[in-house]
């Protein structure tokens, strides 16, 4: 009997555990990913490109990029402001404030869409007023942006708060006591300290903003070429039995997911940026 067997498993048990974990991951995570690309390229690269170049598909790609380009910066500004207020000062009700920021994570995506329909929809509270002034929010791009901002609301703040809490406020206090103003302190002291954490939050926020389905589906109205984001376009093609088209657009989203995972891993290895707790 070897001595180390007491605080570790035998070679056999170790192999069995690693083997079954890998089998589980291969079956549940890797296989679906492989299926996306395989189904997309089933009828050759030509058919794949035709499906991607189709005008409605291109319109959905443009809309998805537009939605992310608007909602991600909004969440960066909010995340920076909220984490500055939360980590640089002590005030009462702080933990309630943090809980409220996390609230969108515990709401079903469908409900996140529903609340904006109740507010701005034709039968919603502000519906008649919006209608009289010819402003369209639901079944239009503004509604999709609102739902996406709601869904991705906690992403950046949640990454930054623990990081800035750990870093404390000594650096900033030193800068201010040396005569720097608030903006200078933020740009030259805080931002360099938190840049990798910020980038990490932005990555996850962007992936969700581009991939959100439930909330966007409720507010979009599914108007082809106008209010269909990529995930919604995938659904429409799939329901029309255009499987190659659906998987072709889906494979673009899968590439986005892979790029996100690689960038995230690079941040974790190269800069030793450690992700605290479970993200979303």
């Amino acid at each position, binding site marked *: 009997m070897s001595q180390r067997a*007491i*605080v570790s498993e035998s070679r056999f048990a170790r192999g069995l555990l690693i083997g*079954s974990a890998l089998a589980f*991951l291969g079956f*549940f*995570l890797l*296989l*679906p*990913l492989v*299926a996306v690309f395989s*189904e997309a390229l089933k009828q050759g690269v030509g058919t794949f490109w035709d499906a991607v170049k189709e005008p409605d598909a291109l319109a959905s790609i443009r809309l998805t990029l537009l939605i992310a380009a608007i909602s991600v910066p909004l969440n960066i500004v*909010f995340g920076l*402001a*909220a984490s500055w*207020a939360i980590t*640089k*000062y*002590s*005030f009462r009700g702080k933990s309630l404030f943090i809980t*409220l*920021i996390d*609230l969108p994570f515990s709401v*079903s995506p*469908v*409900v996140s869409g*529903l*609340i*904006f329909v*109740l507010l701005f929809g034709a*039968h919603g509270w502000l519906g008649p007023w919006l209608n009289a002034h010819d402003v369209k929010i639901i079944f239009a791009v503004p509604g999709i942006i*609102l739902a996406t*901002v*709601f869904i991705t*609301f906690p992403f950046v703040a949640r990454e930054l708060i623990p990081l800035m809490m750990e870093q404390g*406020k000594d650096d*900033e206090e030193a800068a*201010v006591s040396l005569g720097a103003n*608030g903006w200078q302190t933020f740009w030259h002291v805080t931002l360099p300290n938190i840049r990798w954490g910020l980038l990490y939050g932005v990555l*996850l926020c962007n*992936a969700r903003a581009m*991939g959100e389905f*439930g909330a966007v*589906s*409720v507010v979009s109205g599914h108007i082809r070429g106008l209010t269909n984001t*990529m*995930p919604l376009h*995938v659904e429409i093609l*799939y329901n029309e039995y255009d499987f190659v088209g659906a*998987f072709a657009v*889906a494979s673009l989203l*899968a590439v986005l*997911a892979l790029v996100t*995972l*690689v960038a*995230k*891993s690079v941040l974790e*290895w190269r800069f030793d940026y450690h992700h605290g*707790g*479970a*993200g979303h």
Partner: protein
Amino acid sequence: MNSPFSKRNRWRQPSVLPGFGLTFGFSLGWLTLIVLIPLATIFLKSAGMGWSDFIKVGFSERAVAAYRLSFGTAAAAGLVNAIFGLLVAWVLARYSFPGKKVVNALVDLPFALPTAVAGIALTALYAPNGWIGQYLDPLGINVAFTRIGIIIALVFIGLPFVVRSVEPVLADLGKDVEEAAATLGATRHQTFTRVIFPAIGPALLTGFALAFARGVGEYGSVIFISGNMPGKTEIAPLLIVTQLEQYAYDGATAIATVMMIASFAILLGINLIQAWSRGRAGA
């Protein structure tokens, strides 16, 4: 007490750093506008409905079947994830093997892959003529368009919550406590059940709760594989969408309210269990 700050800022301590008013004011205002007011509409609309109407649409036979399905499948998937998530977290935290970094990155795939993409991919795999479905079909096992399909989709969505909750705790748990247990004559099995498991219990419960909460509300990955038969494989979020498409706003709102209250209650209960177990452990 004579400081000019003491009276004005009684609810916060004075600080030399500027920008509190700007950052706190902006973030609270934005939070109120984007999250709090929209969420409040759902409760206000429910309150305006009247009790009997609320019960009628919120607890109709079809709605109750949908709640049972959503909460039941989310709990089943959470259990599967608690077991296999613990296994994956253990392997990642304790052993080294070739390709470990890739495997570690792959665990986060469900966070990065859009749910609709996961939904159609799983359906392609498990449909009766799919890669896996074609082998299960002759055995009389139907996965797609049944509850099993819903559970598989929710296992996919929930796995990283368990792994990412448990793994850091396992990595932090020093070898010294295990060595101490072994020195005192414990077998490996005793060390695991009496030393390691109690230490990671709260993290495992957190992971389960997060996966469960996500599963109850999940929509995109489920609707393709579930078949969506009312009363059988119709999850609660889908019922909300169906009601909305029929302009039944009261029904949609009532179902959403019931789901939110139930989810909050379950999460609160799990938090209480955790607080109690921490208190008992004396930590």
